[in-house]
Structure formats: C-alpha cells, structure tokens
C-alpha cells in the first residue's frame, strides 16, 4: 500500500501533494488497478493532516477517473496511469469516433447505433483470439 | 463519584486509620491494668478511709499517660481540619487539577458535595472512634476525678469531639476555598478553630441553659481562706460538694450586694495580719495572730456573708453535650454550604 509524505516547505498545497504522489505511484507501477488506497483514517494517523485534505485529494483523483470510492469498503484504483494504456485508449477513442460518424452518415439514429454496438460487443469473443 | 472522592482521599484516610489503631493498641495494653488497680485500691478506699493515698498512687502511675492521651484528643479535631479539610479544595486550585475535575460530565457543586460528604463524614467517624475509645479507657480516672463538666473530660469524651471535627473540617475547607492555597488555609484554620473553641467554651457553654443560682453558708464551704492581693487582703471561699457540675461563677456576697473588701477586713478583723505574699489559701503564715484570729474572722464573715454559686448541675451534662455538638455540627454544615456556593459562583 502506498504511504504518503508531506513536505511542508515545498509551496505545493498538501492535497496537491497527495494527488501527485498517487499519480506518480501509478506511473511507476507501485500502484496497480485494483489496489486499495489507504483509508482517510490511516493516512491522517501517519501524517497528521486534516482529514478533509485527504478527502479532497481522493475526490480529485476520482474526478480524473483514476480511482473510485466504494462506500463502506474503501477507495480503489480503477485506471492505471500507464503511458501505453493511456496512448492506446486515446487511439481507440479516435477509432470509435470515426465509426460513429460513419454510422450516422449511413443514416442510423442514436438508438440504432447504440443497439448495434451493444449487440456486437455482447456477441464478440470474450478473449483475444490468437 | 463517591468512588472517586474516596480514591483521592485513600492515603490520608489510611494514615489516620493507622494512628487510631496505634491508639487502640495503647489503650488495650494499659486499660485492663488501670482498671485492675482501680478495682483493688480505689473502689474500696472509702471503706478503708485511705482514699487520699489510693488516688495518689493512681495519679502517680497514670497521670503522664492520661495527659498525653488527653492532649492528643484535644488537638485531633483541629488536625483533621488542617490535614483533611484545608487541602480538600485548595490543593486542586493550587495544582491546577480543578481544570480537569470541573470539565468532566458532572456539575461543580455535585463534585464538591460528594467530597465534603466523604471526607467530612470520615472526620466525624474518626473523631467519634477516638472519643469512644478514650471514654472507655479513662472511666476509672473519671470516677476518681468526678469532674465530667471539666474540659479534660467534656471536650474529649462522648460526642463533642464529633462536633469539633465537623466544624474544624468545614473551617479548613472554607479557608482553602477562600485562600486557594493549602498553607495559608492550614494556618488560618488552626487560628480560627482555636479562637472559636476558646470563645465558645468561655462565653457560650456556661450559658447554654440558664444556670442555677444557689446560696451556700460559709460554714459549708470546703475551701476558704485569705490571700494578699495588690489592693489588700481578700477572702475567698468555695465548695467542692457539687461534683461533675460546671461552676459558672462563685462569689462571696452579703446584704445588698456587699463584698468582703480589704477595708471591711481591717475594720472587723484587725488582729488578722494575713499571710505573707504568695501564700496559698487556708494558711495564715508565720505571723503573730495565729489560728484563733483566723477562725474568729471567718465566723464573723459567715454571719454577714454567704457564697452565691452560679452553676450548671451535673444532671445537665448530656443535654449540654447534645446542644454543643449540634451547634458545632450546624456551624460546620453552614460553612460547607458557604464554600459550595463560593465555588459555584465566584471561583472563576
């Protein structure tokens, strides 16, 4: 599990430091998808800072799509900051946008596009065919 | 809450308990032999007409220890007031622990009433136990001395020490609350307690009930004589025929409030030279004149004068004990109420 450190003199606000440390850990692979972030109580018990600071940092990470809070259980990493995955995602997103435009030009309305996609997705093989 | 008041008080209580045990041991060790000596010699002395000798032996043997124990018993209530009462609140104020005690989930007044009840109650019990032990142990002596109303017995036996302890404790607490420091509170408590006790004993106790006045013939006086004072010769007479009573006043008076003045003596007893200075009552001294002039003078006095004794009879002893104890206890309660009020409104 990741441990946070606070640099009081860095000029960067405490919550920003936490956000940056999580992102850095993701990049370096120290944090992986599915890992749980320490609870707010655990964090403040180690570095004595206001719990709201931690909450704010976790909320921003959630807003960035990197973590998700599961009520009663904890906060978990749902997206890696791995550069290759990020690049692949960008590429896939662009392909999808092209496909959607093609579907529109073919005359499909929104509901038909969605139905076509969901149908194809559900019937696609679950694993990569090698 | 009671538990905590006791817990803070535990050590002080143990110290006094230890002292009481030591006293009890002393009494148990010496008591039976004292009783034995009494039973064998003094109890039968009237039959053998040697009471003087028997009581002298008794006094010789036990006087020192009796004085010691009586002194202890007189000062114990004051000590309880100083060591249990004065620090009770003063210590908390002095050391700052009141900032812990008064911010828990109980009101200040309840906290204080609990402490007063536990420690005040304990002081009354301690004084009562000591008094009970002393009363039992000193029984032979009290029978010999026949002076129950005297301070040596009245102030240390039976129930009055309980009242004194309650009052001394309350004085200590009040001083502690007012001075906020233990040492000045202790000093003030000693002084105030001593002053109150002296004042009460001298001025109030003799008048707790209207005293009885009695006229006694000089011929029935048991001790009488002349003494030389700076203003001349004086005649003094008294009687010890009223044992266990409290004599408030005893004067020799004649018709219309006249007294035996030095001028009267010069006029009516010219041949009475009088004793040398500092001679004790009843002795004429080495002067010409001799006993026949002494007796003649006394007879002359007896014709025109008599003793007027103001006293509290012996059978009022227990009434007085209850009155005095109640007054002291009520004074103690009033002081405690004052301290609680002070702590609630003013110590801030």
């Amino acid at each position, binding site marked *: 599990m990741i441990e946070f450190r*606070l640099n*009081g003199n860095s*000029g960067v606000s*405490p919550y920003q430091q936490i956000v940056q440390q999580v992102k850095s850990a993701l990049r370096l692979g120290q944090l992986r998808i599915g890992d749980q972030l320490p609870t*707010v*109580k655990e964090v*403040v*018990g*180690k*570095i*004595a*800072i*206001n*719990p*709201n600071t931690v909450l704010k940092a976790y909320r921003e990470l959630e807003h960035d799509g990197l973590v998700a809070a599961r009520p009663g259980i904890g906060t978990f990493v749902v997206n890696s900051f791995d550069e290759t995955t990020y690049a692949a995602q960008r590429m896939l997103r662009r392909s999808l946008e092209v496909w959607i435009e093609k579907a529109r030009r073919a005359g499909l309305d929104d509901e038909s596009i969605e139905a076509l996609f969901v149908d194809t997705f559900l019937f696609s093989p679950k694993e990569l065919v090698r | *809450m009671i*538990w*905590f008041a006791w*817990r*803070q008080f535990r*050590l002080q209580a143990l110290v006094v308990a230890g002292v009481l045990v030591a006293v009890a041991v002393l009494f148990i060790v010496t008591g039976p032999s004292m009783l034995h000596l009494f039973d064998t010699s003094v109890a039968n002395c009237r039959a053998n007409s040697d009471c003087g000798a028997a009581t002298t032996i008794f006094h010789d043997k036990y006087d020192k220890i009796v004085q010691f124990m009586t002194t202890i018993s007189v000062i114990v209530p004051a000590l309880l007031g100083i060591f249990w009462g004065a620090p009770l609140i003063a210590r908390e104020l002095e*050391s*700052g*622990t*009141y*900032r*812990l005690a*008064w*911010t*828990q*989930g*109980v*009101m*200040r007044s*309840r*906290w204080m009433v609990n402490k007063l009840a536990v420690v005040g109650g304990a002081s009354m019990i301690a004084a009562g136990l000591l008094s009970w032990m002393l009363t039992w142990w000193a029984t032979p002596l009290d029978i010999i001395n026949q002076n129950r109303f005297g301070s040596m017995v009245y102030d240390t036996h039976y129930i009055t020490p309980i009242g004194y302890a309650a009052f001394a404790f309350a004085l200590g607490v009040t001083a502690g609350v007012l001075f906020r420091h233990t040492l000045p509170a202790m000093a003030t408590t000693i002084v105030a307690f001593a002053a109150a006790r002296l004042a009460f004993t001298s001025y109030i106790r003799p008048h707790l009930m209207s005293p009885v006045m009695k006229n006694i013939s000089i011929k029935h006086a048991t001790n009488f004589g002349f003494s030389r004072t700076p203003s001349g010769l004086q005649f003094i007479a008294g009687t010890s025929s009223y044992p266990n009573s409290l004599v408030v006043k005893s004067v020799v008076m004649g018709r219309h409030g006249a007294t035996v003045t030095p001028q009267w003596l010069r006029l009516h007893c010219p041949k009475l030279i009088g004793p040398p200075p500092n001679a004790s009552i009843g002795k004429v001294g080495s002067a010409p004149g001799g006993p026949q002039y002494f007796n003649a003078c006394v007879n002359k006095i007896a014709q025109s004068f008599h003793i007027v004794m103001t006293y509290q009879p012996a059978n009022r002893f227990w009434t007085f004990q209850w009155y005095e104890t109640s007054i002291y206890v009520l004074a103690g309660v009033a002081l405690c109420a004052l301290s609680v009020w002070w702590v609630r409104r003013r110590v*801030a």
Partner: protein
Amino acid sequence: MTSALQATDLGKRYGRKWALNSCTLDIPTGRVVGLVGPNGAGKSTLLQLAVGLLTPSSGTITVLDERPASSAEQLGRIGYVAQDTPIYPGLSIGAHLHMGAALNSNWDAQLADRRIRDLALDPRQHAGRLSGGQRAQLALTLAIAKRPSLLLMDEPVAALDPLARREFLAILMEVVADQEVSVILSSHLVADLERVSDYLVVLAASQVQVNGDIEELLATHHRLVGSRREIDNFPDAVQVIESSHTERQSTVTVRSVDPILDPTWSVESLTLEDLVLAYMSQAEVQRRDLVRTNGGAR
C-alpha cells in the same frame, strides 16, 4: 446545531487589564479550528471561558448553543485539555480512566483501554511519572473517550518534542476522521496549525484580528509588490492589512474578495504563516500606537 462556539462582544478583565476584549466569533461545527496568537493574547482565556472555568466580564459566549458549564450534560459533550495538561500525580493511569467513566455518562471504556494499550502504557503506573508526551496523550484520551461533540485544547503540544507533537496531532486527526467532532486547538506554532486546521482564528492584542475558513482566507489575501507609492487610495472593498516601504518599493498585504486588476502591482499569494504574521504585526503596531498616545495600555 450549527455553531460550535458563538461569542458576542466577549471580554474578560483582570483588575484593569483586559485579557480579552470585544471578541465576536461564530465558529461553525465540523471544523478543526486553529486558534493562533502570541503568548498572552487571550487564547487560554477564551478557551477557559468556553468551558466555564472563567466567567465573562462583558459580552456573552455560548458553546454548542448553551451557556458554558450550564449542565452536567453539556459538560459531558465537551472534551477539554488544559494548558500543561493537569493530571493527578498520585493516581494511576487506570484510576484516571475510572474517573472518566465515573464522571462522564457517555464514556467509551473500550476506546480508552485501546488507546492506553496502543500507547504501550501500564494502567498501574502513577500519572506523575509520565513524560510530557505521555501526559498529553493521557489527557487526550480522557478528553476523547467521553465521545464529545467538541474538543477544546489549550496549547496541548507546546511543551512536547517534535515526535510527541506529531503523534499527538496524528491521534487527534484520527479521531476527527472517525467521529463527528469539532476541534478548537490553540497554538503559537503556525506550522502545526497549517497541517491540521481548516478554520483559523487569529487573536492578537486581546482581540480577534481575523477568522474564517483557511481556504477562503488564503484565496482572498494577497501580497502586492510594486513601485513605492501612497497606499491610501485603494477601493473600499480592498482592506490593507500591513504595508512596508523601501526607497523604491512598496509591499502591501491586502484582503480583497475581488481580484486585484491594477497592472502596476505584482500579485502574490500568501502562505498561512504570512497571513498570520501580517495580522499579528498589524495588531502590535496598533497596540504600540495606543500605548504612545494614551500613555498606558487598556
């Protein structure tokens, strides 16, 4: 209940000297409030007034919407740690916990025992033999085990070494994360307050100089640096806190809700410490002026 502490024109006088003067505050619940100011500024006095150990000379104060020390129940909802953490030296740690249980109806014995165990303290040890840090932890335990709605702490870490200080604040933050509790914590160390507080009250010269959410305070206070000039022509909405001038340069600390648009100023943001110092030095300047004109302090 929305107010943890509300004071209106609150004042406390000792003889002729006012330890606290015309204080008006409305501190909301759910915050960790840092009460900061120089020694003798009145922080201790304010906290003691809040907990009923002192009575006001003027004005009013309510805590959790009730008069301080008005009932046993109200006292039970406030945890107070006094300056230099008084404890009974002759009593054991266990006896102190028993006291807490006996005197507080909301006592959580399990929490108290667990805290003492976590600190590796022997309940039988006499409290007089504890170190400063351990005493502070005992006092904190006594305050939090009664499950209060409000914690008032008077310089609890002032006399502690850095490690003890960190441990104390960490435990405190755990409690804040765990329970719904408001905290008012006084200190003269801004660095500590910066870590743990989200609301600030600056007390200097016996008066409240500034108070508010730290985020909002930092967003509305700026340091302006520019060429030397007179500084009395700011718009009304801009409040000058502190200013200093060299031959060629003026530096001004201001409070302004709206952004400063004057291009002749270079605008910088402040740290919390800068902000506190600005108010404290302003108060000191005012105090000295008062002494000079009156020939004596009020």
